[in-house]
Each structure stands twice: as C-alpha cells, then as structure tokens.
C-alpha cells in the first residue's frame, strides 16, 4: 500500500526479499504459530486522509468547552496560566521532541544541558540541593516520595494531611500497597493540617509526614510548626508544592523539608485535560543517591570541554533491575523543557511578579465574595485559591455559570462531606477584574 509514512517501493521490497532469501514478507512471520496468528485485518475505523482527519478531529475538539472560550475559575491542582508564546516554539523544535532519553551524550548535549538547567531552577525555587529531571506528575512524584521515605527510614507509616490534593492522596494510597505501607490521614482545622491531630499520630514508626504548600484549599500550611513534629522521631518531612507560589513564599527547603515534590504545570504547560504535566522531585543532598528517575550531571570530555551526562545511574532500573530505587524509565522530559523555557522567560522577576499577581487577584476576588455576603470558609493566609460556601450544590451553581460562559470552581463536596456546597475558587493572573466581578455578580443569590 502507499502511505506517506511508508517509503518502501515494490522494487525496494523485492530486492530486500531477495537479499534475505525469502519469497514473501509472509515467510518472515512463519515463526508465529498458526494457532495464534491473527488472520485478516483489525476491525477498526478505516484510514482517513490528512485533510479529512484534521476536519473530523477539529470538530471533535470543538465539542469541548475549552479555556480559551470559557472563563475558568477552576484550579484544584491544574491552572490556567500565562504561557509565554516562545515555549511552544522551543518545544516544537524536533531535535528535542523526536529524540529519546539521552543515552548517547555526545549527540544529546542540547537535551542534557536543558535538563541540567531545569534541575537548577527547581533547586532554586524549592530551596533544595538536588532535583531530578522530572517525574510523571505531582501525584506520582508524591507517591514516590512516600516510598523513598519508607525505604530510607525503614519505617512503614505515612502521615498524610487531608489538606493534600485528594487525587494525590489516592495515588499515594495505591502506591503504598506495593511495599505495604500504612497511610494515616491527618484531619485539617480551619483549612490547614491539624497540628494536635498530627502530634497525636506521631511516633517512632512514622516514615514521613506529608503536607501540601499551599495546600489543596489554597491555604499556606504552617511549615515552620510542622517541621519539628515531623523530625522529632526521625521521620522525614515531605512537602508537595506549587512551584509558582514559591516565587513569593519561603521555599520548603528553608523550613527543613527533606523532600519537595510537585507539578511544574503552572510553568508553560497547558492544562490538556490533566496530562501530560510535569512532576518534579527535589531532595536534600543526603538523599541524592536514592532519588528516583534520571539525573543529569556536569562533567568534562577528553579535551577538558564542559559537557553533561546522565549520572548516578546505579540507582536506576536498567542497571539495578529489581534493586532499583524506582521503576521509572520514560519521564516528562519535553514538559520539563517547556517548564524550563517558561521559568527562563519569567526569570527572577517574572516569577515573583506573576506569583504576586495571583495573590492580588485572588484576594480581590475573596473580598468581592465577602462584600456580597458570602462566607469564605477558611480564614488563614492563602495563595491563589480560597473556599466559598454556597446555599446549594456546587454542581447546580456551576451549571448556571456555564450558561454564562464561565467554568466555576471545584466542588469540594466530592471529596469532603463536611464541605458540601463549598466551592474552591482559583484566580490566576489571567482573570481580569471584570471577569471576577461578573463571577461574583452571577453568583449573587447563591450565598449561604
């Protein structure tokens, strides 16, 4: 058959068959026993030409209410942020996106250097010593942090704040089943981890304490007060963190976190229905040889020139097999590149400015809700999300907003029975004053 991705001509094929010494391509499959040989063709949709398929898939995409057409106040771990246009131009360079893991450093210096720069930026933001080249996403990075803690401390209990993203918590619980870790959830009080409850669960069997900063409700967890509890009995302190917030907030590393993970999606990565995003994983240097995933290191070549290589590979599955620190192989390299470009474009000033703008807009929105008689459920300091109580189910409220071209906030009742009718509202730098005012106006009669 003729296909634009398949270059062999009939003449090529005949010459090649002759070289091999067979009559037909079929003969090359003679080692597949008849009993398992698939006969005929797959019962799947027939091929479409490029223009036909473009048209069909464009129509399919148009069935969705995308964030370019709708005004979104939905966050909950995934955010609609400014993506510098340059990001897509860089990651569209096919020398990057059509390469694989840089196993051959001499022809992969571009990727390796870009990742080395990414690692540095993550270290800078989190205040940690070492960051790896990426994980699948924030949730699996957090789960691997729990596993690393358990392996390192040889303890089996994980204290997980209920103010951590519910889907992250679910992933931690799934991973915990492998090595048989016990996951104990710590309740929250006024929107942050309940320190008394945490203290009560703390004992010498605890491998780690996990909190999120800012947490799922947008609240700024008191890391300073949590750290001594986490460390008192030789457990580890794990913090999941939105890296954009760290443009303004004191980094977890400064509060003594041992492992900081999260998702770099706020930096240059579209929401794309939840993935691919970009997990990051950063540790104190004591854990350098236990970190999961790829690490890029600086070295020199035979002539003394600076160069970069994958390093400390003795941790990894392709060397250590069943003794590896993790099974991760493919990661999110292209998205790490996107995040690095966005962090570079924003730079030292832009990250702070953008993070500050999130605080400004979210606080303006919060005040607007308060002024319209809404109850803002938690009263502590927050970043770009806060919780508002409605007088009816959030699903109904969001239905009404949708008709006005808006995507409302997250329905917390889905995960927290005690927060029925409560909406988690996210306000990023992209939301205008007018959009915020419209939201509050449209919700006018929904206050409890």
């Amino acid at each position, binding site marked *: 058959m003729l296909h634009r991705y398949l270059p062999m001509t009939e003449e090529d094929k005949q010459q090649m068959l002759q070289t091999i010494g067979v009559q037909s391509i079929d003969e090359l499959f003679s080692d597949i026993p008849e009993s398992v040989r698939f006969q005929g063709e797959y019962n799947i949709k027939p091929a479409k030409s490029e223009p036909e*398929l473009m048209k069909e898939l464009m129509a399919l995409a148009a069935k*969705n209410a995308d964030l370019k057409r709708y005004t979104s106040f939905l966050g909950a771990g995934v955010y609609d942020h400014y993506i510098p246009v340059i990001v897509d131009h860089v990651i569209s*360079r096919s020398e990057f996106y059509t390469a694989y893991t840089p196993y051959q450093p*001499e022809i992969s210096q571009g990727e390796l250097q870009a990742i080395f720069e990414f690692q540095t930026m993550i270290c800078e933001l989190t205040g940690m010593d070492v960051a790896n080249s990426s994980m699948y996403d924030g949730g699996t990075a957090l789960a691997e942090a729990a596993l690393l803690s358990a392996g390192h401390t040889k303890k089996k209990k994980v204290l997980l704040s209920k103010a951590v993203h519910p889907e992250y918590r679910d992933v931690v619980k799934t991973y915990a089943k492998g090595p048989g870790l016990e996951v104990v959830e710590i309740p929250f009080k006024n929107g942050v981890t309940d320190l008394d409850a945490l203290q009560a669960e703390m004992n010498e069997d605890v491998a780690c304490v996990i909190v999120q900063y800012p947490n799922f409700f947008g609240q700024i967890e008191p890391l300073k007060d949590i750290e001594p509890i986490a460390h008192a009995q030789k457990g580890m302190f794990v913090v999941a963190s939105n890296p954009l917030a760290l443009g303004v907030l*004191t980094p977890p590393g400064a509060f003594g976190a041992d492992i900081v993970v999260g998702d770099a999606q706020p930096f240059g990565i579209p929401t794309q229905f939840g993935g*691919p995003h970009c997990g990051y994983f950063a540790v104190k240097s004591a854990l350098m040889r236990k970190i999961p995933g790829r690490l890029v290191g600086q*070295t020199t070549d035979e002539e003394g020139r600076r160069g970069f290589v994958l390093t400390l590979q003795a941790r990894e599955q392709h060397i250590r097999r069943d*003794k590896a620190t993790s099974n991760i192989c493919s990661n999110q390299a292209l998205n790490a590149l996107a995040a690095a470009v966005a962090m570079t474009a924003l730079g030292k000033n832009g990250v702070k400015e953008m993070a500050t703008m999130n605080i400004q807009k979210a606080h303006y929105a919060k005040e607007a809700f308060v002024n319209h008689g809404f109850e803002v459920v938690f009263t502590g300091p927050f970043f770009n999300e806060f919780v508002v109580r409605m007088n009816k189910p959030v699903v109904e409220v969001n239905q009404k907003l949708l008709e006005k071209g808006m995507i409302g906030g997250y329905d917390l009742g889905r995960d927290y029975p005690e927060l029925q009718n409560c909406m988690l509202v996210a306000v990023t730098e992209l939301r205008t004053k007018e959009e915020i005012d419209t939201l509050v106006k449209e919700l006018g009669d929904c206050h409890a």
Partner: protein
Amino acid sequence: MHKDQPLIFELSKPGRIGYSLPELDVPEVNVNEVVPAEYIRKEAPELPEVSELDIMRHYTALSKRNHGVDSGFYPLGSCTMKYNPKINENVARFAGFAHLHPLQPEETVQGALELMYDLQEHLKEITGMDAVTLQPAAGAHGEWTGLMMIRAYHEANGDYNRTKVIVPDTAHGTNPASATVAGFETVTVKSTEEGLVDLDDLRRVVGPDTAALMLTNPNTLGLFEENILEMAEIVHAAGGKLYYDGANLNAVLSKARPGDMGFDVVHLNLHKTFTGPHGGGGPGSGPVGVKADLIPFLPKPTVEKGENGYYFDYDRPQAIGRVKPFYGNFGINVRAYTYIRSMGPDGLKAVTEYAVLNANYMMRRLAEYYDLPYNRHCKHEFVLSGKRQKKLGVRTLDIAKRLLDFGYHPPTIYFPLIVEECMMIEPTETESKETLDAFIDAMIQIAKEAEEHPEIVQEAPHTTVVKRLDETTAARKPILRYQK
C-alpha cells in the same frame, strides 16, 4: 573548533526580561499584610534574566546539539524510533484538546471523552483484550499498574501467597523494577541457546507462589516466543497470570494479538508503537489492557459510554485505586489516536510488515561482518554481537561512538544482558532502503576499520560537539546544578 553553549544562567544580566504580563487591574494589597512575614521569601530564586531573543537563540543552539529522528536515523532497539507525524502535533494543540481542565463538568468535555473511549476501543481490538485503561503515564507505569491489578485479583480470590513474578533473563529492566515496586519478588527464568524462554526452567520456577510471568513477545532479541501457548498453559495451570510487555508491539500488529496468545494483561507504549513522540525522554503513555476477569480491578475512574453520553465511572469498589491524578497523558493519547486513524487497519498491517522486512534485511546484510548470535528470522529488531571486533580491541561502545561520526544514533548497546558486546538494532518501517543501505555501509566500514585502523574506532567520536565524556567523575563528584 566547537564552542560550548553557555548555561542560560551565564547569559543572565540584571535588568533584562523575557515575559509580558498584564497590568494589575485590581486594587493592590500589600503581600506583607496577607502573608505572615516568615512565609514571605527573603531571597529571590536565581532564575535567569534574559530577553526573548536570548532565550530563542539559547534553545536553538541547544537543539543543534541534539539528535532526533528528524535529524537522522535512530535505530535504538526496543524504543521504536519511528517518524513522528506532524499532524499529531497539530491535533494535540487544538484548543479543544490542549486547553481543557481535567475537572470540568463531564458535559463540557464530551469530545475528549469520546476520543478516549474510541481510542480504548481501538486498542482493545489491536491487543485482543476486553478492556483498556489510559491512565498510566508510561510503559513502566503501565507495568506496575498491571501488576497491582494481578495482585488485587489474587487477593480477591483469597490468594495471598503469590509473592513472585517471573521474568526472563532478556527482560527490560523495568520489568523486575516494576515487580519490586508492586511488592513482588522477582524470579528469573533462563533463555535457551536459541534465545527463547527455556520451558524446562519455566516449569522449574513456576509454582503456587507465582503471581505472574512477564513477557515481551517478540522478546528483546527480536525473536518470537513460538512456544507462547505452552508457556501460557504452564503459568495458568499454576494459577498465575500472563503479563505482556508491549514495548515490541510494532513487530506483530495484525499478525498476532497478545489476547490471542493467552496474555491476561498488556501494556502498550503509545510513544513507541503509536508515535507519541518520545520527547527527549517523555512524556509517554502506557495504557493497560486486560481480560474480562481483571476488569473489576482497573484503576478508577474508567471512561464509559452511557445513554446520555460519555462519563467517568468512579463507582468501582474493587479498583486498585488511582495510579495517576486525572486520566492519563491525554495529550499523548490524542497523538496516538490521530496516528491510528491515519493508518487504518491496512496501514497498521503494513507498518509491521515493513518493520520486520527492514530488520531482516539489515540483519542479513550485516551478518557477514558482525557476529549474529541468533541466526533465524527476526521480527522488528535483531541483535548483533561485537565479540569478533572485541578480539581486535574494539568494543561495542567504540562502534557506537564511531557511528556518531556518520550522523547516526547508535543502536541500543549492552542489552539484552545475555549477549556479549550486544548491539540491538531496530530500524522501524518509516526508513527508506537508501537510509538502511547507508547505515549498513557505515557499519561495514567500521568493521573494516576495526581490522585495519582500530584507533579510528577506539578514539571516536571525532566530529561531535564534545568528545567522550568522563562519566566516572560525574558519578563520583556529582555536579547536578549550576552554582555561581
């Protein structure tokens, strides 16, 4: 003379910016009044200060120091480095796919759900399985997900003693690593001299403690495990499950389906077989397919089709839980779906036929110059051994480095572990005969150089932007970040 590309931090100069944010249009609040002082960052992160052109030049320079499939031939065995169609990239960037929030109301994402559902249906047919989840983010993640489901299946049967996962000595490193993360112990089964799983050894290691056998078929030597039905019988008779590592699926599209070979669980690497792309190391996508008896254990949510449209089903009490926030690497799944729809049934059949034709052609032409440890038809990839050249003082690593001078990415080397001085070559179906011939010529030239001028090979590469790098020092005294 090659010049270093400075680090982006070294290009930084205070006072330059590369961004464009809107003016603040709300009344300003003092951050000090809403965030306690100890939680306000004192020192700014040392991120670069550069202009937009600085950034573009920097990354363009870096891209020129990188080899991708679009740069040249990339026969990296087991990685299926085929052409990455450009339509995939365009489709994945449609606003209706790229800019969807995962937690939007279901009625606003029907197009996305339809695509996911239809992709699952296509993958079911392609693998011969009864259900598919798109949640795993990559192949290794799929392996672990599949093993967790097998574990849950056994436990649901009250069977808590199945603690072992069997993997062949040719298996990808991820197989034993995934088994460990899923809480299993790994047992290795040997290969025969013909490069296939040794059935006697399999019978020896299988038992009431067997949870599963993980198998790649064709295996990493590029050989089809022709005793697959017998192996399935041995494992199933002992109460174990059969796991298919889909890394090599490109070899058997329309020729043999894992579901028909007796496999219970399958993972696919959409970034390999279905043109993901590879992204410099990811993101991938590792959907998992299962037979009916494992459906209750699929991670939640699943995507279902109801009378009123598509929906997520969270009400799955036996599910292993979530393996990832949200629903998988949707953006990669969009690309894979676009590819499958571009190929159709006859196209996918041709993919495998040409992938296998190309591999056999290369194998036959190179057999004269390099040691061919398994002399039989291969599937989409084959292994050569450099032991003939090793006697001349030229290692497989040297051969790989010499290939760089010809503008090629070398094959996978020193894997599988059971082949001395191994080179694992996978040409894929998207390469022309001219490309294959040119690569073969380069390999022949290198074989001759090994005999006549070994130093040319031993000192390679000669033309790359850096020469061989000191990996020992990199590991002994790690420098993992830039510091002023």
